[in-house]
């Protein structure tokens, strides 16, 4: 463990706060001009997945912990956990679904992503910026409907649903941001 001033905290770091481990989702400087400067942080509990906002004084010390980021293959999930494998060692790791959040619904088995590991214990994952998934079900867009920004629901090969533009068709491969569950674009078939 290392003690650093909260003013130096950066997104992605892991800290100990109230005896639990949290990952910084956001850290932003803020100065009200009446008292010491502050660091406004959004932190995610690596056990429960709970997000909270907390404001640190820039000069107060915060315990940070060293965490290794290991690329792993997502194997499968059950009702409570997701299972990953380190392809170098074939070791398997278990991550609670609550920690991964909604992103899990957009992962295909075999998808590669980074898992944060501390002392051989997985803490949480770093979802990929984007994933590619096939649309298995969606209504055909109504012809002549050119209203910009209009959306419809599409079911993806993982079973998850997402809002897509009207021109997306069944069988298309789309890219999306799994962390926020948002459509990014459509891939042209080769």
């Amino acid at each position, binding site marked *: 463990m290392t003690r650093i001033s909260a003013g130096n905290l950066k997104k992605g770091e892991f800290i100990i706060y109230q005896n639990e481990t949290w990952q910084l989702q956001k850290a932003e400087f803020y100065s*009200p001009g009446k*008292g010491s400067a502050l660091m406004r942080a959004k932190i995610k509990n690596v056990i429960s997945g709970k997000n909270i906002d907390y404001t640190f004084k820039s000069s107060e010390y915060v315990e940070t912990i060293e965490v290794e980021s290991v690329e792993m293959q997502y194997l499968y999930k059950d009702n409570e956990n997701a299972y990953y494998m380190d392809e170098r060692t074939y070791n398997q790791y278990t991550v609670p679904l609550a920690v991964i959040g909604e992103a899990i619904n957009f992962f295909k088995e075999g998808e590669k992503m980074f898992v944060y590991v501390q002392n051989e214990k997985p803490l949480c994952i770093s979802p990929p910026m984007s994933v590619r998934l096939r649309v298995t079900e969606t209504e055909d867009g109504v012809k002549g409907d050119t209203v910009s920004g209009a959306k419809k629901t599409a079911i993806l090969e993982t079973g998850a649903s997402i809002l897509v533009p009207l021109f997306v068709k069944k069988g298309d491969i789309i890219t999306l941001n799994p962390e926020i569950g948002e459509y990014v674009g459509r891939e042209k078939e080769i």
Partner: protein
Amino acid sequence: MDIQTKIQNLPKYKITLEIKAAINHYFQNKGYLQIDLPVLSPALIPESYLEIFETEFRYLDMKKKLYLTPSPELFLKRLIGQGIGNCYYLGKTFRNSEPNSSLHLPEFTMLEFYKVGVGYKDLATEILELLRYIARCISGSAYSFIYQGEKISLARWEELTLAEAFARCSGISGSDLFVEDKFLQKAKTKGYNTSGFSYEDIFSQIIAQEIEPNLGKNGYPTMVYDFPPKMASLAKLSPDKKIAERMEFYIDGKEIGGCCTEVDNWREYKSRSARHMKKRKEMGSINHKVDNEFVEAIKDGFPPCTGAGIGVDRLAMIFANAKSIGELKLIEVS
């Protein structure tokens, strides 16, 4: 690269220009004199928590320290002491140790204005009038605008004393808020790390953590007023000395500006100034030259007046429906 051009921000940049034009129109119509001021000064009035930029003027073998002004206050108050009357400054100010963030830039545009013969609550009414004027220039409606999908009405303030805001948002009562020991104890039981930190430090931490995010969220801008004397800065105390006559206002959880009845007694000013300087020394802030002549300038009679400060970048961010002040800039330096 440390310098980025952001031509995509042009529409929002143009809204910022319209807001500045609206501010100038408003004050000119109201008879305030626009004051153009130096941004470099050889001395400053001390403010505990504002760090400054220092630079140097050189000519042949002469060298002289200069400071970028963190606020136009020292110049405007000298002029008010000389009887200039109602006036305003709209321009750049500089604060060191404040890195770029969604609400901060080390150099930013400040509106500071002074009205003679009125108190802080009167000026709060005028601030609202100014906001309505800007809204009418920008959106065509003086009484409301939309920010991030929420309608904000400028028909009135949501008014809360600071004690009411603390009681409502943090469960800390007025009697605890105004008494240092009780306040720190209460903060400790709430889980804040108070050891080695001052009342001011914990006060601003709780404001940022528990109070601010809830202000200006009920469809109106919120004005919070009557601060503990310890947080007076240069605000005048009430006749019973129990509160500092200071207000701040918030829109969508963001502090946009505030005003206070100004200290008009030079002895009081001098003792507060000394306290600020002592605090700066304790914190290891830049030891700048103090504008001692300022006290002389106000000795001969400083009129009762109220001063207001508004962060124009933050205000423009709200009216331009932006999430960050960076969205208003054509050039971004980091």
